C-alpha cells in the first residue's frame, strides 16, 4: 500500500521503537502532526520552545542510552533548535532532529519561514539530509538513526519539505544500513592493545583518565574491573562522571580546571597514562606545553581517530569502541604472568594520599549563610546518591560535579562541551521521562534557570515531578568569579537584578515553591521535597546562597594543570 510521507515518518519512528518525540508544531510539519494525532506507538511531548525540545531529546538519550528524537517546524522552529543541536553535538549525544521545510518548489525563493536548515546546522551535526523525494524518506530516516547511534554518536538532522510529507510511495523500512562511506572501526588493533597492556604493567606511577566515551560506550564495568585488577588510581572528566564509582577509594575525583588537587597532580606526574573515551580538552589539561613538560607515556582509546593526537601526542593510539577494546585488554592482563610493580605502586599511592590530604574541596561548614556546596552534599545524602542530577552552566554546575558523588553512569546530565545555560530544566524533563520512577534533581542557578523557565509549563502538562535546586547567589557567579580574579572585581553586568519571586513563579505554573535562607533549614527543605508527599509534584527550591563563594581549585586559562589556585591560598 502507498503511504504519504507524513505516514512514513510516523511509521519509521514506530519501527525504530521511539517512545517519545519532543516537538513543536508549525505549518511545514502539519501533515506529520496530523499523523501523530492518529497513531499511538509513541508519545509526543509538547515543549514550550524548540531549544527545549532538542535538549529534552538529548537528555532522554543521555539518561537511557537510546536515540532521542525532536521534531520542529521550518524557519524559526529550526533556528530555535540550533542551540540544542550544537549542545548535543559537542557532547556526542545521539539525537535525530526532524525539521519541516518549505515545499521543494519553493526552496531558494525566500519563501515564508524558509531557512537553509541543512546549511545552518552543517557545522554542528554529525550529518544532515534534505529529503527531496518521498521515495528516499524511509531509507534516509533509517540512516539518520544509524549514524546518530554508531561510532562516535552525534545529532543528525533530517530536513523534510512539506510536499514530501504529502506525496505517496510504497513503504518499506530497511532492516539494515550499509554505507560505503561510513563504517566506524569498533574493534581495536590487537597489536596495539597488547602493547598498551604491557605498558600498563610497566608503570611506576600509573593513572587512568576516563571521559564521556566510557558513559556513551557503556563501559564503566570494564573500566572498574580494570582499575580494580591493577589497583590504579582513576579520574573522570566532567563528562565522564559516573564512569567509575565516585565513592570508591581509588577515585581521585574530577580533573581539570576545577578538578581536585590530587587528580590534577596525579595526571601531571604519572608516568603511564591510560586515556579512555576522553579528548584531552583544554579545560582538562590546561596549557598543553606545560602538560608536555613532564615525561609520560600515553595510551589513548577512542572510537574517533580525530580525537587522538589532536592536542596531546600519544604513544599508543587505539581506535575502537571502549567496551570492545577494554574487554580485550582485560583478557590479556588477566592472562599475563606479569603483575604491576607493587613497591612502586605503594610509593605512588603514598604520594597521592599526601596530595589528597590537602582536602582541596573544603569549605566553611559553620556558615549561617547557605554555602552552595553544603546544599549539594545534603542533596547527595538525602537522595542516597541515587538521583539523576542535571545541571545548568556556572558555578553550581562545578559544585554539583565536585560534591554529588556519582557511583553509576548516566546519572549526571550537563552541557560540558558547549556550556549551554538553560539545559538544566529540559534535561530534567528528558531524564524523568526516561526514568519515570527515579528522583530527578536539577541543580541550577538563578540566571541559567531563566533561560528555559517556560518549560515549567511542560512539566505541569506531563506531570514531571522534577526537583529544582536553585543555588541563588543573585549573580552569574561563574562570570563574577572571573571578574573578581582577572578583572579587578569590576562586576560588569554579572549581577541579576529584578529577579522574580521564584516561589510565586513556581506556584503560578501550578507547582510547589520553597524559599530557603538559612543553613539550618536546608536539610528539612530537601527532605520535604524528596518525601513521598511530594512524589508527584515539581518542587522549586530557591536556596539563597553565599554571593561571594568561589569554585576551587581553579586552573587559570593558559596555566599548567598543577598550577592550581586553592581556596586556602587566598
Amino acid at each position, binding site marked *: 500500500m502507498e503511504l504519504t510521507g507524513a505516514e512514513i515518518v510516523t511509521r519509521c519512528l514506530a519501527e525504530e521503537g521511539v517512545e517519545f518525540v519532543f516537538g513543536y508544531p508549525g505549518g511545514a510539519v502539519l501533515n506529520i502532526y496530523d499523523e501523530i494525532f492518529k497513531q499511538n506507538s509513541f508519545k509526543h511531548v509538547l515543549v514550550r520552545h524548540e531549544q527545549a525540545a532538542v535538549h529534552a531529546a538529548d537528555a532522554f538519550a543521555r539518561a537511557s542510552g537510546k536515540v532521542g528524537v525532536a521534531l520542529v517546524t521550518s524557519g524559526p522552529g529550526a533556528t530555535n533548535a540550533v542551540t540544542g543541536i550544537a549542545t548535543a553535538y559537542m557532547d556526542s549525544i545521539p539525537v535525530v532532529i526532524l525539521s519541516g521545510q518549505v515545499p521543494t518548489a519553493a526552496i531558494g525563493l525566500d519563501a515564508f519561514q524558509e531557512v537553509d536548515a541543512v*546549511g545552518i546546522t*552543517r*557545522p554542528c551535526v554529525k*550529518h544532515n539530509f534534505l529529503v527531496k523525494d518521498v521515495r528516499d524518506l524511509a531509507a534516509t530516516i533509517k540512516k539518520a538513526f544509524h*549514524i546518530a547511534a554508531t561510532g562516535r554518536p552525534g545529532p543528525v538532522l533530517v530536513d523534510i519539505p512539506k510536499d514530501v510529507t504529502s506525496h505517496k510511495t510504497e513503504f518499506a523500512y530497511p532492516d539494515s544500513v550499509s554505507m560505503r562511506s561510513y563504517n566506524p572501526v569498533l574493534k581495536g588493533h590487537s597489536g596495539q592493545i597488547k602493547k598498551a597492556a604491557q605498558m600498563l604493567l610497566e608503570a611506576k606511577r600509573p593513572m587512568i583518565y576516563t571521559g564521556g566515551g566510557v558513559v556513551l560506550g557503556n563501559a564503566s564495568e570494564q573500566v572498574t574491573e580494570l582499575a580494580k585488577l591493577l589497583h590504579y588510581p582513576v579520574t573522570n572528566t566532567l563528562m565522564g562522571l559516573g564512569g567509575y564509582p565516585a565513592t570508591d577509594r581509588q577515585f581521585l575525583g574530577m580533573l581539570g580546571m576545577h578538578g581536585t588537587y590530587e587528580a590534577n597532580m596525579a595526571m601531571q606526574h604519572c608516568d603511564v597514562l591510560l586515556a579512555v573515551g576522553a579528548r584531552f580538552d583544554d579545560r582538562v589539561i590546561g596549557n598543553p606545553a606545560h602538560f608536555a613538560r613532564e615525561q609520560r607515556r600515553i595510551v589513548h582509546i577512542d572510537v574517533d581517530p*580525530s580525537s587522538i593526537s*589532536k592536542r596531546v601526542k600519544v604513544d599508543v593510539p587505539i581506535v575502537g569502541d571502549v567496551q570492545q577494546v577494554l574487554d580485550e585488554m582485560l583478557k590479556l592482563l588477566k592472562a599475563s604472568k606479569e603483575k604491576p610493580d607493587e613497591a612502586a605502586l605503594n610509593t605512588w599511592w603514598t604520594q597521592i594520599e599526601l596530595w589528597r590530604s590537602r582536602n582541596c574541596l573544603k569549605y566553611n561548614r559553620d556558615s549561617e549563610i547557605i554555602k552552595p556546596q553544603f546544599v549539594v552534599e545534603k542533596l547527595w545524602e538525602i537522595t542516597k546518591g541515587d538521583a539523576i542530577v542535571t545541571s545548568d552552566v556556572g558555578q553550581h554546575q562545578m559544585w554539583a560535579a565536585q560534591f554529588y558523588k556519582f557511583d553509576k553512569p548516566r546519572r549526571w546530565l550537563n552541557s560540558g562541551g558547549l556550556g549551554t545555560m538553560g539545559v538544566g530544566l529540559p534535561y530534567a524533563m528528558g531524564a524523568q521521562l526516561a526514568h519515570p520512577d527515579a528522583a530527578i534533581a536539577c541543580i541550577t542557578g538563578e540566571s541559567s534557570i531563566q533561560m528555559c523557565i517556560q518549560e515549567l509549563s511542560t512539566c505541569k502538562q506531563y506531570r514531571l515531578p522534577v526537583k529544582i535546586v536553585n543555588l541563588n547567589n543573585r549573580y552569574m557567579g561563574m562570570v563574577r568569579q572571573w571578574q573578581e580574579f582577572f578583572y579587578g572585581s569590576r562586576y560588569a553586568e554579572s549581577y541579576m537584578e529584578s529577579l522574580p519571586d521564584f516561589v510565586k513563579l513556581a506556584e503560578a505554573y501550578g507547582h510547589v515553591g520553597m524559599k530557603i535562607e538559612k543553613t539550618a533549614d536546608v536539610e528539612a527543605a530537601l527532605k520535604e521535597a524528596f518525601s513521598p508527599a511530594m512524589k508527584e509534584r515539581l518542587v522549586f527550591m530557591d536556596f539563597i546562597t553565599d554571593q561571594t563563594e568561589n569554585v576551587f581549585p581553579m586552573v587559570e586559562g593558559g596555566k599548567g594543570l598543577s598550577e592550581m589556585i586553592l581556596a586556602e591560598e587566598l
Partner: protein
Amino acid sequence: MRHIISLLMENEAGALSRVAGLFSARGYNIESLTVAPTEDATLSRMTIVTVGSEDVIEQIIKQLNKLVDVVKVLDLTEGSHIERELMLVKVRAAGKEREELKRMADIFRGRIIDVADLSYTIELTGTGTKLDAFLEAIDESVILETVRTGASGIGRGDRILKV
C-alpha cells in the same frame, strides 16, 4: 608543508560544502580545490592543495575521513604522484607580440586555442610551478586575463584511489 590530498566522496548535493565548510570552520588553509564526478557517476573526486604542519595535516586527513559523505582519502604527497593544473591565459597580441607569444607558448608546450585580432588565448597544462614560470616569462603588461583550475593529482604506478 604543502600537501596534495585526493578524496572520493558521494556525488551528492551539499557534499562539496561539507568539505569547504570543514576547512573554513577549523581554520585550515586551502590553496586550491577541484572537484568533478568520476567514471562512476555516484562518486566525485576532489583534489585539495593545502599547507600545514604535520600535526595539522594529520588532523585534516582525519577530519575529512570523518565526513559521512567521504568514501576515501589519500595524501598523495606521501608517495610518488603526478600533479597537473590547467591554465587559460588571454594575452594582448598585436603586431610583433604575436610572434613572440607564439614562440613562448611553444616553449612551454602550450596551445593557442583562440585567435582574435588583438589577442590570443593560450592553453597550458603542467604543475603549478610551470604555469607560474610561464606567467613570469611573458611580459606582464600583455596579460589580459588568467584562469586556473587548481591542481589535480594522481598516484604513480599502482598507487590507486578507488572504491
